[in-house]
């Protein structure tokens, strides 16, 4: 058999969980490769969720979710600096609007304590209003100071970049089509690009994790996509709507529709929760938007709907039993990190440690002495002081050209995002890395310019630049013009 590559561990899926696992594996003396079917990492659940680093009071005590959540939350406090992550430790409130809900808060408080969540407290109305003046309907709230908000795409990318800095490899546009087994044991992964020899596989394939497991012969679980829709607001218009994470008292199959700040200072409302059949259906719906607006208004009656700048939806990867599916599969050489719905983002670094330990026992593998934990700091032009800005432009003039007006993103930052390890190759990939196009005009001004910068830096035609997925062309050559002749 011809192999395009040989590895010790192949990670399937480049979401935040797969990337965190890749980073953890890169601490060991093994060759690890991550395969992502899309043109960029973090294109599935990771790019469309609530971005919350949960405190950990929600999941049943003793569940994988509860254990990994509390541990993961602690790990992010450490990773924040190492990986230069944008995290705001805002704390979270679960708001009760009547006495019945206050009883639920007490249950959550008790569960949280059992889960090992530190410093939980129930606040009275005055204390809630002191934190969040717009929560005019609150009678009490559960306060969890260890919760925060992050930028999930950035977390995934920085995990991947840290792994790459330690010798791991990320292959994008690479779809797993099957596995080669010998004596029941996985020895290679078949992909659209060719066969990759490996000693074991970690399945972090998000909503497709059950299908990947099935390809390997593990039918022990199913993943059901559960859609959540969101509405995002302009940050300049409503940056003081809420200052942190605000949950209603929880509903049956989700934590409810929340009003929440983002790490970049926008506010969003959502998500609702609808079980789907289609694992690709991330469309937003009129009834869905009506539902989240109505629910959010119960928390914040004066919601400024005119300041909405975009709507989006993501799919949660929900397992049969509702918990994470973690560890060695029934198929030798396969490890699952599946069913990673909320608090999957928070849990990701803890899950990574758990999986890496399991893989270490299987292979075996040993920790490297020279693991480089810290990544170089990112340049955010808009956060620099005036003299830092002046110095940077003097050194690199492209930082003096602002491409995205709404978010003040410079050409220098965009070129850096394209040239970085696991660099941007699409317009949406640039947007996720730099925020160009994330503001109130949603790329109306900078979109064509970003497209042209990508074409120039990648050495391709503007007509070949993609928005996101493989057939998402943005522009076409004019049909009747033969270039350059008057």
């Amino acid at each position, binding site marked *: 058999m011809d192999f395009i590559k040989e590895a010790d561990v192949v990670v399937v899926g480049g979401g935040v969980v797969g990337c965190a696992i890749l980073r953890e594996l890169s601490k060991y003396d093994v060759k690890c490769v991550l395969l992502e079917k899309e043109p960029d990492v973090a294109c599935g659940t990771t790019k469309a969720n609530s971005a919350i680093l949960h405190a950990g009071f929600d999941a049943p005590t003793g569940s994988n979710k509860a254990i990994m959540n509390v541990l993961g939350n602690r790990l992010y406090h450490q990773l924040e600096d190492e990986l230069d992550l944008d995290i705001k430790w805002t704390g979270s409130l679960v708001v009760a609007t009547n006495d019945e809900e206050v009883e639920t808060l007490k249950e959550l408080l008790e569960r949280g304590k059992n889960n090992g969540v530190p410093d939980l407290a129930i606040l009275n109305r005055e204390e809630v209003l002191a934190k969040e003046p717009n929560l005019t309907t609150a009678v009490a709230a559960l306060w969890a100071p260890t919760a925060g908000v992050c930028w999930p795409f950035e977390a995934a990318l920085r995990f991947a970049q840290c792994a790459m800095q330690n010798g791991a490899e990320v292959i994008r546009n690479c779809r797993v089509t099957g596995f080669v087994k010998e004596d029941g044991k996985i020895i290679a992964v078949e992909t659209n690009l060719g066969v990759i020899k490996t000693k074991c596989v970690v399945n972090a394939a998000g909503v497709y994790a059950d299908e990947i497991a099935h390809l390997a012969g593990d039918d022990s679980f199913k993943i059901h996509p559960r859609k959540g829709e969101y*509405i995002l607001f302009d940050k300049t218009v409503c940056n003081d709507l809420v200052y942190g994470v605000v949950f209603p008292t929880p509903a049956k199959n989700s934590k409810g529709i929340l009003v929440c700040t983002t790490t970049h200072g926008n506010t969003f409302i959502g998500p609702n929760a609808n079980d789907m059949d289609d694992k690709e259906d991330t469309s937003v719906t009129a009834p869905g*938007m009506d539902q989240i607006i109505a629910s959010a208004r119960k928390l914040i009656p004066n919601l400024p709907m005119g300041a909405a700048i975009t709507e989006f939806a993501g799919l949660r990867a929900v397992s049969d039993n509702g918990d994470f599916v973690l560890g060695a599969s029934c198929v030798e050489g396969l490890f699952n990190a599946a069913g990673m719905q909320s608090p999957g983002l928070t849990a990701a670094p803890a899950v990574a440690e758990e999986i890496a330990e399991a893989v270490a026992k299987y292979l075996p593998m040993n920790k490297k002495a020279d693991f480089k934990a810290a990544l170089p700091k990112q340049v955010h032009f808009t956060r620099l002081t005036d003299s830092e800005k002046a110095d940077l432009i003097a050194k690199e003039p492209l930082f*003096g050209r602002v491409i995205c*007006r709404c978010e003040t993103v410079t050409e220098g930052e965009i070129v850096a995002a394209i040239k970085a390890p696991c660099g941007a190759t699409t317009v949406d990939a640039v947007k996720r890395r730099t925020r160009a196009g994330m503001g109130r*005009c949603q790329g*109306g001004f900078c979109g*064509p310019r970003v497209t*042209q910068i990508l074409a120039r830096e990648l050495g391709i035609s503007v007509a070949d630049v993609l928005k996101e997925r493989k*057939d998402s062309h943005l522009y076409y050559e004019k049909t009747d013009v033969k270039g350059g002749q008057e």
Partner: protein
Amino acid sequence: MKELKDLYDIVIVGGGPAGLSAAYSAWQNGAKSVLVIERDRELGGILQQCIHNGFGLHHFKEELTGPGYAHRCIELVKDKSEIECLTDTMVLSVEKDKTVVAVSPDHGLIKVKGKTVILTMGCRERTRGAIRIPGERPAGVFTAGAAQRMVNMEGYIPGHKIVILGSGDIGLIMARRMSLEGCKVQAVLEICPFSNGLTRNIVQCLNDYNIPLYLSHTIVKIHGKDRVNGITVAKVDEKMRPIPGTEFDIDCDTVLLSVGLIPENELSRGLDLKMHPLTNGPVVDQHRQTSLPGFYAAGNVVHVHDLVDFVSEEAEIAGKFAALEAQGKLDGNTKFVTVTAEKGVRTCVPQCLNLPEAGEQVRLFMRVANPERKVKLVVKSGDNVILQRMLPVAKPSEMIAVDIPAAKTELIGSSLTVFLDKEA
């Protein structure tokens, strides 16, 4: 590379038709140093991508294309030693002490101060997100202006089978433009029961190309995972809600949005200028001075205009008075008047007046809320009717201008209202 001064008579933010017209007018009125700061690689603003004709009939008394109009404006300011223009330079902030902070690859970080500042940042397009169109989020959904830039300036088309949502002027112009590029424009959809574009554009851009205009219709779903592959459309009721059962599909690979323009006022908000909730621009007096002394504003940043000619006219007012103020020649006016749009008139600019004792001719620009026929426009101060005019037709898409002669401004008290008298 130009050596910049520390202090200018006037710093103008934005080098489109408003900024350039303001600069020229300031020069005509004696300003000795004017700096125009433009973010794009050339002056002229959005006009440079508007390669169709129909510009300049009022202002230059001849019909020009967008770049033609821009060229005229550029010709007026170039080679004047008192006017400097910076391109490829983005203003990051404007401080209350009239320091303007900007960056460019050539000049690095720039800090200049004006005795006065004129804000002429223009406007931007409303997006899909602002109007909450359901469906997937594939490639192929563009604002009409972004598509226009690609087609007319960069030489690429956004797709081949086009549907345009919104019958604003840019949408209508793009319907014709895409047809001329060999694309098939399947439909123009308008959620209102009337078009939001100029009548001449309906005729010249849709009717002449057999492009259907669906009034009271909107998109209820965008289809396509990677690239748009169709839309579902529905008729809407009088509250603009889709009517169940009226849905139909249109085959297309591109959706262009022409659903409104929003004055670009992030810098104005940074200055805490008093803003008007309906124009989305700063509140200005008849000289286009904002609520902050020494700061003027003109053009689409104040209110979205129908014709660039009126943008120039407004900017010339701002340029003149900013120049007079910079030279210490502006007399303190004594009579403050609030101007309020009521009953059928949606907006009126200026929103206040600072009148001298002797009176001063004032021009009011208004837009009506709904299409009307045979109505009387009334300008009243207290019980005094200052002016009235019969309007055979009034459309929200077309600005109405009325002049109040200097002599009549003496009759104005502390407030002025403009409204439509429909009983007339």
